[in-house]
């Protein structure tokens, strides 16, 4: 086996010690550069091999440190998600408790304004990309909540909107002709309403 072929084989073997992403991205360039340095007499094949082995160890160490950081970040994300779901579960109970007295109201009477933590005012422009607008609780006044409700909003207080998934929508209608729709989740508005 001649010198350059042996060098190339040795370099490729040493390259196998690197983490795969590094090898795939920079492997060809490292091989080329090592060959150039050896050919130019800048380094001996032994120095090149030593260099590659040392850098492989450093890259392995870096990859290991990164994977540890990733694992820590994932654990943190899980903790945040758990805390979030716990918070959401706690707050999801509030509307249920608030709706209990409304079940006893006389037939035909308007429901009392609900005390929602947050709710969405649907601007039914029919334009693509219109989404429910989340309104903070302190702006829960009726006119403030739905300033741009078009006159085509014919839903009567407490009545379902055709086509709406009743599970996903909590209706809090306050006056005839005005409606405030609280969404449990973001849903794009259906066109034509």
């Amino acid at each position, binding site marked *: 086996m001649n010198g350059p072929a042996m060098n190339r084989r040795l370099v490729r073997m040493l390259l196998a010690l690197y983490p795969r992403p*590094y090898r795939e*991205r*920079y492997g*060809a*360039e*490292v*091989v*080329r*550069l*090592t060959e*150039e*340095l050896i050919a130019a007499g*800048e*380094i001996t094949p032994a*120095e*090149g091999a030593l*260099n*590659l082995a*040392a*850098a*492989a160890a*450093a*890259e392995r160490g*870096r990859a290991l440190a990164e994977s540890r950081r990733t694992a820590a970040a994932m654990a943190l994300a899980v903790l945040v998600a758990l805390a979030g779901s716990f918070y959401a579960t706690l707050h999801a109970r509030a509307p249920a408790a608030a709706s209990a007295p409304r079940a006893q109201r006389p037939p035909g009477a308007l429901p009392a304004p609900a005390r929602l933590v947050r709710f969405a005012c649907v601007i039914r422009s029919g334009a693509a990309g219109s989404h429910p607008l989340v309104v903070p609780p302190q702006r829960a006044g009726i006119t403030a909540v739905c300033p741009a409700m078009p006159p085509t909003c014919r839903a009567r207080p407490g009545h379902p909107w055709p086509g709406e998934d009743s599970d996903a929508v909590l209706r809090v209608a306050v006056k005839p002709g005005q409606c405030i729709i609280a969404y449990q989740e973001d849903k794009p508005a259906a066109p034509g309403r």
Partner: protein
Amino acid sequence: MTSDSIRGSSDRSILILTSLADWPKHGYALIKDIEGFAGVKLGACPPYSALAKLEQAGLVEALPPEERRRPYRITATGREYLYLRLTESARIAEVGLRRIAVALS
């Protein structure tokens, strides 16, 4: 402590960014250039380890390869970062040199 022992990875990144500050270079040209202006010899792999970090940070970008040689170019963010780091180093150097001069006088 030798002058080489105080050169850390961040120093290597600055050397690479400085080398790329004028025009794009591939690995070999980068090594020779750094050797020329800083007297620092980088092996075959350290430039790529540092280039990987710099590329990840958006400070340099790879250009299409030419015969298995891929040139690298400094980005606008990289130039800005280099400018800030060099300005900072120049300020520290100025203070240090002034104090040495005062101590010697």
